[in-house]
């Protein structure tokens, strides 16, 4: 009796054992981190093609089309200048307030719109996720690249504004390249965090505008950053000076604005150190965090 029971068990192993014996794998299992990274890299062509397609389609229902890539930053700068430069005349401490303001606005917009779109990177693409196999990290990276292309347009506008307001063209301008690259890595990491978070908490999308507005006010975009030290207690000012958005904005101002060299929030060396630290920490941390949720994204 006992013998037959054993034989029975042998002839019909549990599904898991059977799967193991024939080398089957769990469907939709999360690959190891190294393998996952390799997959994301293998999908780089998809990522670039998808982001280019997104850019092309984003204005396809407007009459001016891609021109809006230039018009949006210009309009933004005009509005902020009208309010903070003319009406509130905030420019007492800054020599070239228009250029100062525009640099801040454009650099901040990059992070802001990346985060805003990244929050719904998973939920907006659920159809794609439930139809096709690809490393889901491609989606937040795509979001960042779309905004990066917008940033390049904004930088062209910015270069014109900065030169037109009387700033000299110096070799230091080259430093804008590493600045924006570090910011891009930071943004990719942050978008991955927001994408996973936003996939779970769908109400987050409604809250993000307020969070981002607060971040904007805390990032020294619209007013001279020296006001931090003048008006805030020591600890609060120190905290604000570690704000990654502020750091990337200040580095951009350091690169482009000759007139603003004495008004930096921290010495350049310190800014570079913090910019690098934020990019590495957020880039790696965000990627690992996103990878850990890879299995769940199809659920919605």
């Amino acid at each position: 009796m006992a013998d037959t029971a054993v034989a029975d068990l042998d002839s019909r192993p549990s599904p898991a054992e059977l799967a193991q014996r024939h080398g089957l794998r769990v469907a939709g299992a999360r690959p190891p981190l190294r393998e996952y990274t390799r997959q994301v890299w293998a999908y780089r062509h998809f990522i670039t093609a998808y982001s280019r397609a997104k850019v092309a389609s984003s204005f396809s229902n407007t009459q001016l089309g891609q021109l809006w890539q230039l018009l949006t930053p210009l309009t933004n700068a005009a509005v902020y200048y009208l309010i903070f430069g003319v009406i509130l005349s905030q420019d007492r401490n800054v020599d070239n307030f228009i250029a100062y303001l525009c640099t801040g606005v454009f650099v901040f917009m990059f992070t802001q719109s990346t985060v805003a779109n990244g929050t719904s990177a998973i939920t907006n693409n659920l159809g794609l996720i439930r139809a096709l196999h690809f490393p889901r990290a491609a989606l937040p990276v795509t979001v960042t690249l779309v905004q990066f292309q917008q940033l390049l347009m904004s930088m062209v506008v910015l270069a014109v504004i900065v030169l037109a307001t009387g700033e000299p063209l110096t070799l230091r301008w080259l430093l804008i390249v590493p600045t924006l690259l570090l910011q891009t890595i930071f943004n990719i990491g942050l978008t991955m965090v927001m994408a996973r978070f936003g996939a779970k908490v769908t109400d987050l999308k409604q809250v993000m505008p307020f969070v981002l507005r607060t971040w904007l006010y805390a990032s020294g975009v619209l007013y001279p950053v020296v006001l931090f030290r003048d008006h805030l207690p020591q600890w609060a000012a120190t905290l604000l000076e570690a704000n990654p958005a502020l750091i990337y904005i200040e580095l951009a101002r350091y690169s482009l604005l000759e007139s603003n060299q004495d008004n930096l929030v921290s010495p350049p060396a310190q800014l570079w150190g913090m910019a690098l630290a934020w990019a590495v920490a957020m880039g790696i941390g965000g990627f690992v965090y996103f990878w850990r949720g890879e299995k769940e994204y199809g659920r919605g």
Partner: protein
Amino acid sequence: MAEQTQSKANATPAAAERVPTIIVDDVHVIYRIHKGAAANNGATAALKRIVSRTKTPNIREVHAVKGVSFTAYQGEAIGLIGSNGSGKSTLLRTIAGLLPPAQGAVYTHGQPSLLGVNAALLNDLSGERNVVLGCLAMGMSPEKVKRVTPDIIEFSGINERGDFASLPMRTYSSGMGARLRFAIAATKDHDVLLIDEALATGDRKFRARSEQRVRELRANAGTVFLVSHALGSIRDTCERTIWLEGGVLKMDGPTDEVCNAYEGR
């Protein structure tokens, strides 16, 4: 019906030697739907709830697949039938690893590919660009994509009435869109192939072409799953059929037996 599978497995002496390619082990799939946007659930009602502190379940769960188990073997073509909303497409997505099961597990040999007409692409982009994107998303190299793009457009037949490939997909009729999506998905050869209603796509001419293509794909694939409401095409292509009803496996056996039972219900 579980006994039926078991007795079948016991009856065949070669059962132990057959190579399983897909093992579905007591799989449950649950969709969570946030009711926040429901009509009877307006802002005032929500506020009232918060003020009066009554708890209403804000999330509704739809239990789409309830404990399905079966094993598919190398070389089998399995039909999946059942009425609308019985969990067929959901089960396929779970087998493909696109939708995680809430409970249980699916084991597969290699990476199963889902061949559906639902692959969401970008409606604002031209058909041609969608082809390129779709192929890249399936993991093809850019060189190969360039090579196969004209074939796909040719196969889909969207250019039969003028140059539609360069127009945005939102200008397509629903049939044209479905044809293009099927053409994209059917480009690749697959280990384990899951076909979701693809044969019902498009007009008669296209259907003949797509059935031919599916037959070719089947010849190269190890195991094929076919979801369809057309029992005819299931009888043509599958020797085994699984009948799902209300998320539960109702019957699993030879196609003729199951189809007859399904028709006579």
